[in-house]
């Protein structure tokens, strides 16, 4: 490829695209430029996460306590195992991608197609896993009470293990009313209904002497502060405002709402990259199968999408560390 323009004039050679600065083709170099700028976008997200975490460093949720679920293992706490699985899936799909690039260098069409196919499967498994992770996070597990200051109160028994609000709240004649049209215009919906309201949770809390409240503030050992029974009763009666179940962009039963915001933005932006990577890989896969690159006598296109795919893996390595480990 590089030597085909040797007969052109010096101007055409240098300025007409015949020259390859840094011995990289135009497309590959542009892919590297894109990767650098996209890396800066992701580091902007992660640095903003670090900023918010440093700002509320004594009240930040512990990721180990948030992501404890594994599909089909109901009630078995398995912190980190599922993200570790997702990490392996993505690294492995990177391996099949680089094998496809290598087979492309050797002009082995069927091998490229097979490895591209495996890469697409890996990417699909990853995106599916992330959807499951989101669904679990949004649904929540124990439920919590939000205070008037926007802080989260969680419930523990005297042994220190978490208690779900559904297991102690007393069902009462509901005082909550549906949003009535006489109270406002249709688009100003009422508060989201939780399965128990604050009065029911408070009544259940007062009736069970073995329950304690845990605040989101961390003590000097990095564990959330657990209040005494008297302080717990005082806290829920004076400060409790509403029940929170699961997480969304405004409220988050696991702790600070910013934690959920960054979770949705960072893993969502990364998941979107994986999703578009899968789409691009599918296009390239069909091009390989119909022999486009065989006719072009170069599989450089596979190399270029390969760069993008590895970059997505590279970003996940950092997201994994800074969101789940540190």
């Amino acid at each position, binding site marked *: 490829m590089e030597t085909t323009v040797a007969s052109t004039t010096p101007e055409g050679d240098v300025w007409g695209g015949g020259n390859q600065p840094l011995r990289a083709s135009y497309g590959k170099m542009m892919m590297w430029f894109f990767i650098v700028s996209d890396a800066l976008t992701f580091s902007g997200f992660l640095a903003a996460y670090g900023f918010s*975490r440093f700002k509320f460093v004594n009240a930040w949720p512990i990721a180990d306590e948030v992501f404890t679920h594994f599909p089909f293992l109901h009630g078995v706490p398995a912190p980190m195992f599922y993200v570790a699985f997702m990490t392996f899936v993505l*690294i492995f799909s990177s391996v099949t991608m680089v094998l496809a690039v290598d087979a492309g260098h050797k002009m082995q069409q069927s091998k490229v197609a097979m490895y591209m196919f495996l890469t697409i499967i890996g990417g699909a498994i990853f995106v599916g896993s992330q959807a499951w992770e989101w669904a679990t996070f949004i649904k929540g597990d124990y439920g919590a009470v939000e205070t008037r*200051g926007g802080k989260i109160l969680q419930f523990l028994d005297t042994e220190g293990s978490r208690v779900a609000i559904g297991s102690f709240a007393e069902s009462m004649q509901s005082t909550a009313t549906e949003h009535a049209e006489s109270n406002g215009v249709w688009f100003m919906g009422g508060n989201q209904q939780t399965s128990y309201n604050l009065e029911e949770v408070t009544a259940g809390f007062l009736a069970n002497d073995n329950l304690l409240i845990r605040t989101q503030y961390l003590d000097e050992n990095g564990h959330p502060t657990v209040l005494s029974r008297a302080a717990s009763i005082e806290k829920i009666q004076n400060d409790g405002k509403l029940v929170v179940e699961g997480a969304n962009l405004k409220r988050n039963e696991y702790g600070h709402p910013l934690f959920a915001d960054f979770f949705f933005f960072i893993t969502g932006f990364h998941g979107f990259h994986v999703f578009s990577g899968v789409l691009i890989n599918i296009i390239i896969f069909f091009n390989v199968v119909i022999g486009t690159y065989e006719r072009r006598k170069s599989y450089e296109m596979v190399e270029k999408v390969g760069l993008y795919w590895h970059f997505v893996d590279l970003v996940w390595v950092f997201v994994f560390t800074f969101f789940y480990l540190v």
Partner: protein
Amino acid sequence: MGHHQHSLAIFRGRLKFKSIEQKIWGVFIFLSIITIVEVAFGIIKPASLMSPFLSPFEGELFATFANIFLSPFIYMKPLNLIFIVLTIVKAYYITWDFMHMRDETKSLRRMVVWTAIFLICYLVLILLIEGDYIFEVYKNNYVKFDF
């Protein structure tokens, strides 16, 4: 494409592979081992790695410099330091071997890597210092936040 040269050695030439496929699998095994170590540390969380190795130096100019240069060992849990180092090692091998940065020219490599590293380090540094400053303001002021 025929004259593309692939270097088949990793770990500064200490580990040489016979073919490019073997090198890919070798790097995959290495990355997997690092990930397993990270997950194991993350689950066990050894108590000895949960508090910083050194405490801040007290004193004048030299103590300030020492606190700045040794800040990873003074203000950071050793466990987190291990995680970050392992992450950078993983990023290095993904970039160098999967993205073939090892086979690119030196100038392309520096253009991509140094630009990104400089800008990211700068951004992280100013944002984390600012975040810590706001934390101190919240902590030491007269407005009650916990209610």
